[in-house]
Protein backbone atom coordinates (compact mmCIF):
# COMPACT_ATOMS: atom_id res chain seq x y z
CA UNK A 1 0.00 0.00 0.00
CA UNK A 2 1.47 3.37 -0.86
CA UNK A 3 1.57 6.35 1.42
CA UNK A 4 -0.78 8.39 -0.70
CA UNK A 5 -3.58 5.92 -0.06
CA UNK A 6 -2.96 6.16 3.66
CA UNK A 7 -3.17 9.96 3.81
CA UNK A 8 -6.21 10.14 1.52
CA UNK A 9 -7.88 7.31 3.41
CA UNK A 10 -7.19 8.91 6.77
CA UNK A 11 -8.73 12.20 5.69
CA UNK A 12 -11.96 10.62 4.57
CA UNK A 13 -11.74 8.21 7.51
CA UNK A 14 -11.63 11.12 9.95
CA UNK A 15 -14.83 12.50 8.44
CA UNK A 16 -16.49 9.10 8.58
CA UNK A 17 -15.39 8.78 12.21
CA UNK A 18 -16.85 12.20 13.10
CA UNK A 19 -20.17 11.28 11.52
CA UNK A 20 -20.14 7.86 13.15
CA UNK A 21 -19.95 9.40 16.65
CA UNK A 22 -23.58 10.43 16.45
CA UNK A 23 -24.62 7.09 14.95
CA UNK A 24 -22.90 5.07 17.63
CA UNK A 25 -24.08 7.24 20.54
CA UNK A 26 -27.72 7.46 19.48
CA UNK A 27 -27.79 3.76 18.65
CA UNK A 28 -26.20 2.89 21.97
CA UNK A 29 -28.66 5.04 23.90
CA UNK A 30 -31.94 4.70 22.01
CA UNK A 31 -31.33 1.33 20.30
CA UNK A 32 -32.36 2.48 16.90
CA UNK A 33 -30.49 3.06 13.67
CA UNK A 34 -31.06 6.64 12.58
CA UNK A 35 -30.87 6.66 8.82
CA UNK A 36 -31.34 10.43 8.79
CA UNK A 37 -27.95 10.94 10.43
CA UNK A 38 -26.17 11.43 7.10
CA UNK A 39 -28.48 14.37 6.39
CA UNK A 40 -27.08 16.18 9.44
CA UNK A 41 -23.73 16.15 7.65
CA UNK A 42 -25.32 17.51 4.45
CA UNK A 43 -27.27 20.16 6.31
CA UNK A 44 -24.18 21.06 8.27
CA UNK A 45 -22.26 21.60 5.04
CA UNK A 46 -24.98 23.75 3.44
CA UNK A 47 -25.68 25.74 6.60
CA UNK A 48 -21.97 26.61 6.69
CA UNK A 49 -22.14 27.61 3.01
CA UNK A 50 -25.01 29.99 3.73
CA UNK A 51 -23.40 31.37 6.90
CA UNK A 52 -20.07 31.96 5.12
CA UNK A 53 -21.74 33.83 2.27
CA UNK A 54 -23.86 35.82 4.76
CA UNK A 55 -20.67 36.83 6.54
CA UNK A 56 -19.19 37.87 3.21
CA UNK A 57 -22.23 40.00 2.42
CA UNK A 58 -22.36 41.57 5.87
CA UNK A 59 -18.67 42.41 5.90
CA UNK A 60 -18.70 43.48 2.26
CA UNK A 61 -16.09 41.11 0.92
CA UNK A 62 -15.61 37.49 0.01
CA UNK A 63 -13.71 35.19 2.34
CA UNK A 64 -9.95 35.50 2.06
CA UNK A 65 -7.67 32.57 2.60
CA UNK A 66 -5.59 31.64 5.59
CA UNK A 67 -2.04 30.95 4.41
CA UNK A 68 -2.12 28.45 1.56
CA UNK A 69 -5.47 26.99 2.59
CA UNK A 70 -8.40 27.37 0.19
CA UNK A 71 -10.62 28.95 2.83
CA UNK A 72 -10.49 31.78 5.30
CA UNK A 73 -11.85 32.63 8.71
CA UNK A 74 -15.38 33.22 7.39
CA UNK A 75 -15.64 29.49 6.88
CA UNK A 76 -14.22 28.77 10.33
CA UNK A 77 -16.87 30.97 11.92
CA UNK A 78 -19.47 29.35 9.66
CA UNK A 79 -18.27 25.93 10.80
CA UNK A 80 -18.85 26.82 14.44
CA UNK A 81 -22.26 28.33 13.64
CA UNK A 82 -23.22 25.33 11.56
CA UNK A 83 -22.26 22.90 14.33
CA UNK A 84 -24.57 24.77 16.71
CA UNK A 85 -27.46 25.01 14.24
CA UNK A 86 -27.16 21.39 13.09
CA UNK A 87 -27.07 20.25 16.71
CA UNK A 88 -30.37 22.10 17.19
CA UNK A 89 -31.72 20.52 13.99
CA UNK A 90 -30.92 17.06 15.37
CA UNK A 91 -32.59 17.96 18.65
CA UNK A 92 -35.64 19.31 16.83
CA UNK A 93 -35.94 16.16 14.72
CA UNK A 94 -35.92 14.11 17.91
CA UNK A 95 -38.60 16.20 19.62
CA UNK A 96 -41.00 16.39 16.69
CA UNK A 97 -40.54 12.85 15.44
CA UNK A 98 -38.46 10.26 17.25
CA UNK A 99 -39.39 11.12 20.84
CA UNK A 100 -43.08 10.70 20.11
CA UNK A 101 -42.54 7.41 18.31
CA UNK A 102 -40.28 6.08 21.08
CA UNK A 103 -43.18 6.28 23.50
CA UNK A 104 -45.34 3.93 21.47
CA UNK A 105 -43.71 2.54 18.37
CA UNK A 106 -41.31 -0.34 17.96
CA UNK A 107 -37.71 -0.04 16.83
CA UNK A 108 -38.76 -0.76 13.26
CA UNK A 109 -41.21 2.15 13.21
CA UNK A 110 -38.39 4.47 14.27
CA UNK A 111 -36.07 3.19 11.56
CA UNK A 112 -38.69 3.68 8.86
CA UNK A 113 -39.48 7.14 10.25
CA UNK A 114 -35.80 8.01 10.03
CA UNK A 115 -35.81 6.95 6.36
CA UNK A 116 -38.70 9.31 5.79
CA UNK A 117 -36.96 12.12 7.64
CA UNK A 118 -33.82 11.51 5.60
CA UNK A 119 -35.73 11.79 2.35
CA UNK A 120 -37.53 14.95 3.47
CA UNK A 121 -34.36 16.68 4.67
CA UNK A 122 -32.52 15.81 1.46
CA UNK A 123 -35.36 16.95 -0.79
CA UNK A 124 -35.51 20.28 0.99
CA UNK A 125 -31.86 20.89 0.19
CA UNK A 126 -32.29 19.80 -3.43
CA UNK A 127 -35.18 22.23 -3.67
CA UNK A 128 -33.18 25.09 -2.21
CA UNK A 129 -29.78 24.48 -3.76
CA UNK A 130 -30.47 22.24 -6.82
CA UNK A 131 -28.56 19.02 -7.31
CA UNK A 132 -25.52 20.80 -8.74
CA UNK A 133 -22.26 20.57 -6.78
CA UNK A 134 -21.21 23.68 -4.87
CA UNK A 135 -17.88 24.73 -3.43
CA UNK A 136 -16.83 26.80 -0.44
CA UNK A 137 -13.96 28.20 -2.45
CA UNK A 138 -12.62 28.30 -5.99
CA UNK A 139 -9.01 28.47 -4.81
CA UNK A 140 -6.62 25.77 -6.00
CA UNK A 141 -5.63 23.49 -3.12
CA UNK A 142 -1.86 23.57 -2.49
CA UNK A 143 -0.17 20.28 -1.82
CA UNK A 144 2.86 19.60 0.31
CA UNK A 145 5.11 16.54 0.43
CA UNK A 146 4.89 15.03 3.89
CA UNK A 147 7.00 11.95 3.11
CA UNK A 148 8.51 10.45 -0.04
CA UNK A 149 5.59 9.46 -2.26
CA UNK A 150 3.06 11.08 0.07
CA UNK A 151 1.48 14.40 -0.79
CA UNK A 152 -1.43 16.02 0.94
CA UNK A 153 -3.25 19.28 0.42
CA UNK A 154 -2.95 21.69 3.32
CA UNK A 155 -6.74 21.55 3.52
CA UNK A 156 -6.55 17.80 4.07
CA UNK A 157 -4.02 18.15 6.85
CA UNK A 158 -6.02 20.83 8.65
CA UNK A 159 -9.25 18.85 8.28
CA UNK A 160 -7.54 15.72 9.58
CA UNK A 161 -6.11 17.59 12.57
CA UNK A 162 -9.34 19.33 13.52
CA UNK A 163 -11.39 16.14 13.06
CA UNK A 164 -9.06 14.12 15.27
CA UNK A 165 -9.10 16.91 17.87
CA UNK A 166 -12.92 16.94 17.88
CA UNK A 167 -13.07 13.17 18.29
CA UNK A 168 -10.46 13.20 21.05
CA UNK A 169 -12.36 16.00 22.79
CA UNK A 170 -15.57 14.01 22.62
CA UNK A 171 -13.81 10.98 24.04
CA UNK A 172 -12.32 12.99 26.92
CA UNK A 173 -15.72 14.52 27.66
CA UNK A 174 -17.28 11.06 27.86
CA UNK A 175 -14.57 9.57 30.04
CA UNK A 176 -13.63 12.47 32.30
CA UNK A 177 -16.70 14.57 33.03
CA UNK A 178 -19.80 13.92 35.12
CA UNK A 179 -21.95 14.50 32.03
CA UNK A 180 -19.92 11.95 30.06
CA UNK A 181 -20.19 9.40 32.85
CA UNK A 182 -23.94 9.97 32.97
CA UNK A 183 -24.12 9.43 29.21
CA UNK A 184 -22.18 6.16 29.36
CA UNK A 185 -24.21 4.97 32.35
CA UNK A 186 -27.53 5.76 30.66
CA UNK A 187 -26.48 4.04 27.46
CA UNK A 188 -25.65 0.91 29.42
CA UNK A 189 -28.65 0.78 31.74
CA UNK A 190 -31.29 3.53 31.53
CA UNK A 191 -33.35 2.24 34.47
CA UNK A 192 -30.39 2.14 36.81
CA UNK A 193 -29.38 5.58 35.55
CA UNK A 194 -32.79 6.91 36.62
CA UNK A 195 -32.37 5.26 40.00
CA UNK A 196 -29.00 7.00 40.32
CA UNK A 197 -30.66 10.38 39.82
CA UNK A 198 -29.77 10.89 36.16
CA UNK A 199 -32.43 12.68 34.11
CA UNK A 200 -32.45 10.42 31.07
CA UNK A 201 -34.28 12.99 28.93
CA UNK A 202 -31.34 15.38 29.48
CA UNK A 203 -28.87 12.72 28.42
CA UNK A 204 -30.88 12.00 25.27
CA UNK A 205 -30.92 15.70 24.38
CA UNK A 206 -27.17 16.02 24.94
CA UNK A 207 -26.54 12.99 22.73
CA UNK A 208 -28.51 14.47 19.83
CA UNK A 209 -26.74 17.82 20.19
CA UNK A 210 -23.32 16.18 20.22
CA UNK A 211 -24.09 13.82 17.33
CA UNK A 212 -25.55 16.64 15.23
CA UNK A 213 -22.59 18.95 15.85
CA UNK A 214 -20.04 16.29 14.94
CA UNK A 215 -21.95 15.33 11.80
CA UNK A 216 -22.02 19.00 10.77
CA UNK A 217 -18.25 19.18 11.10
CA UNK A 218 -17.92 16.04 8.97
CA UNK A 219 -20.14 17.63 6.32
CA UNK A 220 -18.17 20.88 6.26
CA UNK A 221 -14.88 19.00 5.99
CA UNK A 222 -16.26 16.92 3.15
CA UNK A 223 -17.31 20.16 1.48
CA UNK A 224 -13.82 21.58 1.92
CA UNK A 225 -11.93 18.56 0.60
CA UNK A 226 -14.41 17.38 -2.05
CA UNK A 227 -17.57 19.38 -2.81
CA UNK A 228 -21.11 19.97 -1.56
CA UNK A 229 -24.00 18.00 -3.00
CA UNK A 230 -27.44 17.34 -1.51
CA UNK A 231 -26.68 13.59 -1.57
CA UNK A 232 -23.27 13.84 0.12
CA UNK A 233 -24.51 12.77 3.55
CA UNK A 234 -26.74 10.05 2.25
CA UNK A 235 -23.80 8.55 0.40
CA UNK A 236 -21.81 8.73 3.63
CA UNK A 237 -24.47 6.77 5.52
CA UNK A 238 -23.23 3.25 4.83
CA UNK A 239 -19.61 4.03 5.76
CA UNK A 240 -20.93 5.74 8.93
CA UNK A 241 -22.84 2.67 10.03
CA UNK A 242 -20.01 0.37 9.01
CA UNK A 243 -17.58 2.45 11.11
CA UNK A 244 -19.91 2.54 14.11
CA UNK A 245 -20.53 -1.21 14.07
CA UNK A 246 -16.93 -1.99 13.26
CA UNK A 247 -15.70 0.05 16.20
CA UNK A 248 -18.33 -1.31 18.57
CA UNK A 249 -21.67 0.38 19.21
CA UNK A 250 -21.45 3.09 21.86
CA UNK A 251 -17.68 3.51 21.58
CA UNK A 252 -16.28 6.84 20.41
CA UNK A 253 -12.68 5.56 20.02
CA UNK A 254 -14.30 2.68 18.13
CA UNK A 255 -16.08 5.07 15.76
CA UNK A 256 -12.80 6.86 15.17
CA UNK A 257 -10.83 3.66 14.52
CA UNK A 258 -13.67 2.20 12.47
CA UNK A 259 -13.82 5.38 10.38
CA UNK A 260 -10.09 5.28 9.72
CA UNK A 261 -10.17 1.61 8.73
CA UNK A 262 -13.10 2.11 6.36
CA UNK A 263 -11.57 5.27 4.93
CA UNK A 264 -8.20 3.65 4.23
CA UNK A 265 -9.80 0.45 2.89
CA UNK A 266 -11.94 2.49 0.49
CA UNK A 267 -8.96 4.49 -0.69
CA UNK A 268 -6.94 1.30 -1.17
CA UNK A 269 -9.70 -0.40 -3.12
CA UNK A 270 -10.01 2.27 -5.78
CA UNK A 271 -6.67 1.58 -7.58
CA UNK A 272 -7.11 -2.18 -7.12
CA UNK A 273 -10.77 -2.77 -7.93
CA UNK A 274 -11.87 0.50 -9.50
CA UNK A 275 -13.92 3.38 -8.15
CA UNK A 276 -17.25 1.65 -8.76
CA UNK A 277 -16.44 -0.84 -5.99
CA UNK A 278 -15.56 1.83 -3.42
CA UNK A 279 -18.94 1.58 -1.70
CA UNK A 280 -18.75 -2.19 -1.35
CA UNK A 281 -15.52 -1.99 0.60
CA UNK A 282 -17.15 -0.78 3.79
CA UNK A 283 -19.32 -3.87 3.77
CA UNK A 284 -16.53 -6.32 3.13
CA UNK A 285 -14.40 -4.88 5.94
CA UNK A 286 -17.40 -4.87 8.24
CA UNK A 287 -18.25 -8.50 7.52
CA UNK A 288 -14.70 -9.67 8.05
CA UNK A 289 -14.38 -7.90 11.40
CA UNK A 290 -17.77 -9.04 12.62
CA UNK A 291 -16.93 -12.64 11.80
CA UNK A 292 -13.83 -12.37 13.96
CA UNK A 293 -15.23 -10.14 16.71
CA UNK A 294 -19.04 -9.80 16.69
CA UNK A 295 -19.11 -6.93 19.19
CA UNK A 296 -16.81 -4.79 17.07
CA UNK A 297 -13.29 -3.67 17.85
CA UNK A 298 -14.01 -1.70 21.03
CA UNK A 299 -17.45 -3.13 21.80
CA UNK A 300 -17.95 -4.65 25.22
CA UNK A 301 -21.49 -5.85 24.86
CA UNK A 302 -23.44 -8.11 22.57
CA UNK A 303 -26.34 -6.45 20.81
Amino acid sequence: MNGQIVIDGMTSGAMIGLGAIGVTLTYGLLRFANFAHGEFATWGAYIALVLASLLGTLLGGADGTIGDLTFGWHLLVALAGSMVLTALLALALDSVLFRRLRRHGSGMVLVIASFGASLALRSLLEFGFTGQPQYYSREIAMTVAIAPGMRATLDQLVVLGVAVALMAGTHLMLTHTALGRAMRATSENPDLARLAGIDVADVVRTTWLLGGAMAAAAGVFLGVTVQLRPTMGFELLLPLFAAAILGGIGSVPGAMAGGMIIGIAEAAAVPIAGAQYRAAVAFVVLLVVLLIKPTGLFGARER
Partner: protein
Amino acid sequence: MSVLTVETVVAGYEPGLPIVRGVSFTLSAGEILVLLGPNGAGKSTLAKAVAGLVTISSGTVRLRGVSLAGMAAHDRIRHGVAFVPQTGNVFAGLTVADNLAIAVNILPRAERAGRIAAMLALFPDLAAARRARAGLLSGGQRQMLAIARALAVAPSVLTLDEPSAGLSPKLVGAVMQKLREIRDSGVAILLVEQNARAALAVADRAMILAEGRIAHEGHGASMLDDPAVAGLYLGRRV
Protein backbone atom coordinates in the same frame (compact mmCIF):
# COMPACT_ATOMS: atom_id res chain seq x y z
CA MET B 1 -42.20 7.38 63.36
CA SER B 2 -43.04 6.12 59.91
CA VAL B 3 -40.85 7.36 57.08
CA LEU B 4 -42.59 5.64 54.21
CA THR B 5 -46.35 5.21 54.01
CA VAL B 6 -47.83 3.06 51.26
CA GLU B 7 -51.60 3.28 50.99
CA THR B 8 -53.82 0.99 48.89
CA VAL B 9 -51.34 1.09 46.04
CA VAL B 10 -52.39 -0.41 42.72
CA ALA B 11 -49.66 -0.71 40.10
CA GLY B 12 -48.83 -2.67 36.97
CA TYR B 13 -47.25 -2.51 33.54
CA GLU B 14 -50.33 -2.21 31.35
CA PRO B 15 -53.55 -0.28 31.95
CA GLY B 16 -56.28 -2.54 33.29
CA LEU B 17 -53.83 -5.26 34.30
CA PRO B 18 -52.90 -4.51 37.92
CA ILE B 19 -50.07 -6.60 39.36
CA VAL B 20 -50.01 -4.96 42.78
CA ARG B 21 -53.63 -4.77 43.90
CA GLY B 22 -54.19 -2.50 46.87
CA VAL B 23 -51.17 -2.83 49.13
CA SER B 24 -50.77 -0.78 52.32
CA PHE B 25 -47.92 -0.70 54.83
CA THR B 26 -45.71 1.69 56.75
CA LEU B 27 -41.98 1.62 57.22
CA SER B 28 -40.09 3.32 60.06
CA ALA B 29 -36.55 4.60 60.40
CA GLY B 30 -34.17 1.94 61.69
CA GLU B 31 -36.46 -0.90 60.73
CA ILE B 32 -36.16 -3.83 58.31
CA LEU B 33 -39.47 -4.80 56.74
CA VAL B 34 -39.19 -8.03 54.79
CA LEU B 35 -41.47 -8.70 51.82
CA LEU B 36 -41.85 -12.38 50.97
CA GLY B 37 -44.07 -14.17 48.50
CA PRO B 38 -44.17 -16.75 45.74
CA ASN B 39 -42.84 -16.14 42.24
CA GLY B 40 -44.91 -13.66 40.29
CA ALA B 41 -46.69 -12.32 43.39
CA GLY B 42 -45.75 -8.76 42.47
CA LYS B 43 -42.91 -8.14 44.94
CA SER B 44 -40.58 -6.61 42.40
CA THR B 45 -43.40 -4.59 40.91
CA LEU B 46 -44.23 -3.14 44.33
CA ALA B 47 -40.57 -2.30 44.93
CA LYS B 48 -40.38 -0.58 41.53
CA ALA B 49 -43.56 1.35 42.26
CA VAL B 50 -41.97 2.74 45.43
CA ALA B 51 -38.79 3.62 43.48
CA GLY B 52 -40.74 5.32 40.69
CA LEU B 53 -39.94 2.87 37.88
CA VAL B 54 -43.53 1.60 37.69
CA THR B 55 -46.49 3.95 37.60
CA ILE B 56 -49.04 3.80 40.37
CA SER B 57 -52.60 3.83 39.03
CA SER B 58 -54.26 4.43 42.38
CA GLY B 59 -53.29 4.78 46.02
CA THR B 60 -50.39 6.82 47.38
CA VAL B 61 -46.78 6.52 48.42
CA ARG B 62 -45.72 9.16 50.94
CA LEU B 63 -42.31 10.05 52.27
CA ARG B 64 -42.62 11.68 55.71
CA GLY B 65 -46.16 12.61 54.79
CA VAL B 66 -45.28 14.13 51.41
CA SER B 67 -46.80 12.38 48.40
CA LEU B 68 -44.41 11.06 45.78
CA ALA B 69 -47.18 10.93 43.18
CA GLY B 70 -45.94 11.89 39.75
CA MET B 71 -42.35 12.19 40.95
CA ALA B 72 -39.89 10.59 38.50
CA ALA B 73 -37.41 7.98 39.72
CA HIS B 74 -34.49 10.38 39.21
CA ASP B 75 -36.13 12.83 41.59
CA ARG B 76 -37.13 10.25 44.20
CA ILE B 77 -33.49 9.35 44.84
CA ARG B 78 -32.83 13.05 45.46
CA HIS B 79 -35.52 12.91 48.13
CA GLY B 80 -33.86 9.91 49.76
CA VAL B 81 -35.75 6.96 48.28
CA ALA B 82 -33.11 4.49 47.04
CA PHE B 83 -33.59 1.19 45.23
CA VAL B 84 -31.28 -1.74 44.47
CA PRO B 85 -32.91 -3.76 41.66
CA GLN B 86 -32.42 -7.50 41.46
CA THR B 87 -30.59 -7.53 38.11
CA GLY B 88 -28.60 -4.87 36.33
CA ASN B 89 -27.90 -3.17 39.62
CA VAL B 90 -24.42 -1.90 38.80
CA PHE B 91 -23.05 -0.18 35.69
CA ALA B 92 -21.04 -3.18 34.50
CA GLY B 93 -19.03 -1.31 31.89
CA LEU B 94 -17.90 1.36 34.34
CA THR B 95 -15.32 1.10 37.09
CA VAL B 96 -16.25 0.76 40.75
CA ALA B 97 -15.04 4.33 41.28
CA ASP B 98 -17.21 5.62 38.40
CA ASN B 99 -20.25 3.75 39.73
CA LEU B 100 -19.86 5.53 43.04
CA ALA B 101 -19.05 8.86 41.39
CA ILE B 102 -22.32 8.68 39.46
CA ALA B 103 -24.21 7.90 42.65
CA VAL B 104 -22.89 10.89 44.62
CA ASN B 105 -23.20 13.29 41.69
CA ILE B 106 -26.61 14.43 42.94
CA LEU B 107 -25.12 15.51 46.28
CA PRO B 108 -23.62 18.95 46.94
CA ARG B 109 -20.05 18.98 45.59
CA ALA B 110 -18.49 19.32 49.03
CA GLU B 111 -20.09 16.13 50.33
CA ARG B 112 -19.24 13.80 47.47
CA ALA B 113 -15.71 12.67 48.36
CA GLY B 114 -16.73 12.09 51.96
CA ARG B 115 -19.65 9.87 50.99
CA ILE B 116 -17.49 7.81 48.64
CA ALA B 117 -14.90 7.40 51.39
CA ALA B 118 -17.66 6.33 53.79
CA MET B 119 -18.87 3.68 51.33
CA LEU B 120 -15.36 2.35 50.77
CA ALA B 121 -14.91 2.13 54.55
CA LEU B 122 -18.19 0.27 54.93
CA PHE B 123 -17.35 -2.09 52.04
CA PRO B 124 -13.56 -2.65 52.25
CA ASP B 125 -13.65 -5.14 49.34
CA LEU B 126 -14.66 -2.32 47.05
CA ALA B 127 -11.77 -0.11 48.10
CA ALA B 128 -9.32 -2.70 46.78
CA ALA B 129 -11.26 -3.02 43.51
CA ARG B 130 -11.80 0.68 42.84
CA ARG B 131 -10.19 0.67 39.39
CA ALA B 132 -11.85 -2.60 38.31
CA ARG B 133 -14.78 -2.64 35.93
CA ALA B 134 -17.91 -3.52 37.86
CA GLY B 135 -18.74 -6.26 35.37
CA LEU B 136 -15.58 -8.11 36.40
CA LEU B 137 -16.39 -8.19 40.13
CA SER B 138 -17.38 -11.41 41.89
CA GLY B 139 -21.06 -11.92 42.69
CA GLY B 140 -20.58 -10.86 46.29
CA GLN B 141 -18.53 -7.76 45.47
CA ARG B 142 -21.02 -6.80 42.82
CA GLN B 143 -23.91 -6.98 45.29
CA MET B 144 -21.91 -4.89 47.78
CA LEU B 145 -21.28 -2.31 45.04
CA ALA B 146 -24.99 -2.26 44.20
CA ILE B 147 -25.81 -1.57 47.84
CA ALA B 148 -23.01 0.98 48.20
CA ARG B 149 -24.23 2.79 45.08
CA ALA B 150 -27.71 3.15 46.55
CA LEU B 151 -26.48 3.97 50.05
CA ALA B 152 -23.94 6.54 48.87
CA VAL B 153 -26.51 9.33 48.92
CA ALA B 154 -27.45 8.58 52.54
CA PRO B 155 -31.07 7.72 51.68
CA SER B 156 -33.78 7.55 54.32
CA VAL B 157 -35.48 4.60 52.60
CA LEU B 158 -33.54 1.74 51.02
CA THR B 159 -35.44 -0.90 49.01
CA LEU B 160 -33.56 -4.02 47.91
CA ASP B 161 -34.89 -6.64 45.50
CA GLU B 162 -33.52 -10.10 46.35
CA PRO B 163 -29.99 -9.04 47.28
CA SER B 164 -29.20 -12.64 48.25
CA ALA B 165 -30.06 -14.08 44.82
CA GLY B 166 -27.26 -16.18 43.40
CA LEU B 167 -24.95 -15.78 46.41
CA SER B 168 -23.40 -18.55 48.48
CA PRO B 169 -24.83 -19.01 52.01
CA LYS B 170 -21.74 -17.37 53.48
CA LEU B 171 -22.15 -14.31 51.27
CA VAL B 172 -25.88 -14.17 52.00
CA GLY B 173 -24.93 -13.96 55.67
CA ALA B 174 -22.50 -11.15 54.91
CA VAL B 175 -25.13 -9.18 52.97
CA MET B 176 -27.70 -9.61 55.75
CA GLN B 177 -25.11 -8.49 58.32
CA LYS B 178 -24.50 -5.32 56.27
CA LEU B 179 -28.23 -4.67 56.11
CA ARG B 180 -28.36 -4.92 59.90
CA GLU B 181 -25.60 -2.33 60.21
CA ILE B 182 -27.37 -0.07 57.74
CA ARG B 183 -30.63 -0.46 59.63
CA ASP B 184 -28.87 0.37 62.89
CA SER B 185 -27.61 3.60 61.35
CA GLY B 186 -31.25 4.68 61.05
CA VAL B 187 -32.17 3.78 57.47
CA ALA B 188 -35.64 2.36 56.81
CA ILE B 189 -35.17 -0.85 54.82
CA LEU B 190 -37.71 -2.64 52.62
CA LEU B 191 -36.19 -6.03 51.84
CA VAL B 192 -37.77 -8.15 49.09
CA GLU B 193 -36.56 -11.73 49.40
CA GLN B 194 -37.09 -15.31 48.27
CA ASN B 195 -34.66 -16.58 50.86
CA ALA B 196 -37.18 -16.45 53.70
CA ARG B 197 -34.91 -17.99 56.34
CA ALA B 198 -32.05 -15.54 55.82
CA ALA B 199 -34.37 -12.54 55.49
CA LEU B 200 -36.54 -13.31 58.50
CA ALA B 201 -33.41 -13.66 60.62
CA VAL B 202 -32.79 -9.92 60.19
CA ALA B 203 -36.42 -8.82 59.88
CA ASP B 204 -38.15 -6.56 62.37
CA ARG B 205 -41.45 -7.20 60.62
CA ALA B 206 -42.44 -9.19 57.57
CA MET B 207 -45.29 -9.36 55.07
CA ILE B 208 -46.23 -12.01 52.56
CA LEU B 209 -47.50 -10.85 49.19
CA ALA B 210 -49.66 -13.24 47.18
CA GLU B 211 -51.34 -12.34 43.91
CA GLY B 212 -50.69 -8.68 44.47
CA ARG B 213 -52.18 -8.48 47.96
CA ILE B 214 -50.75 -8.74 51.44
CA ALA B 215 -51.77 -12.19 52.61
CA HIS B 216 -50.01 -12.30 55.94
CA GLU B 217 -48.08 -10.06 58.33
CA GLY B 218 -45.88 -11.06 61.20
CA HIS B 219 -42.81 -10.48 63.31
CA GLY B 220 -39.55 -11.94 62.14
CA ALA B 221 -38.28 -15.46 62.60
CA SER B 222 -41.36 -16.75 64.43
CA MET B 223 -43.19 -16.65 61.08
CA LEU B 224 -41.20 -19.65 59.92
CA ASP B 225 -43.14 -21.81 62.40
CA ASP B 226 -46.55 -20.54 61.26
CA PRO B 227 -48.37 -23.19 59.17
CA ALA B 228 -50.26 -20.45 57.30
CA VAL B 229 -46.95 -19.05 56.13
CA ALA B 230 -45.70 -22.45 55.06
CA GLY B 231 -48.96 -22.88 53.14
CA LEU B 232 -48.31 -19.71 51.15
CA TYR B 233 -44.99 -21.20 50.18
CA LEU B 234 -46.41 -24.56 49.23
CA GLY B 235 -43.78 -26.52 47.41
CA ARG B 236 -41.02 -24.18 48.48
CA ARG B 237 -38.45 -24.91 51.11
CA VAL B 238 -38.84 -22.23 53.77
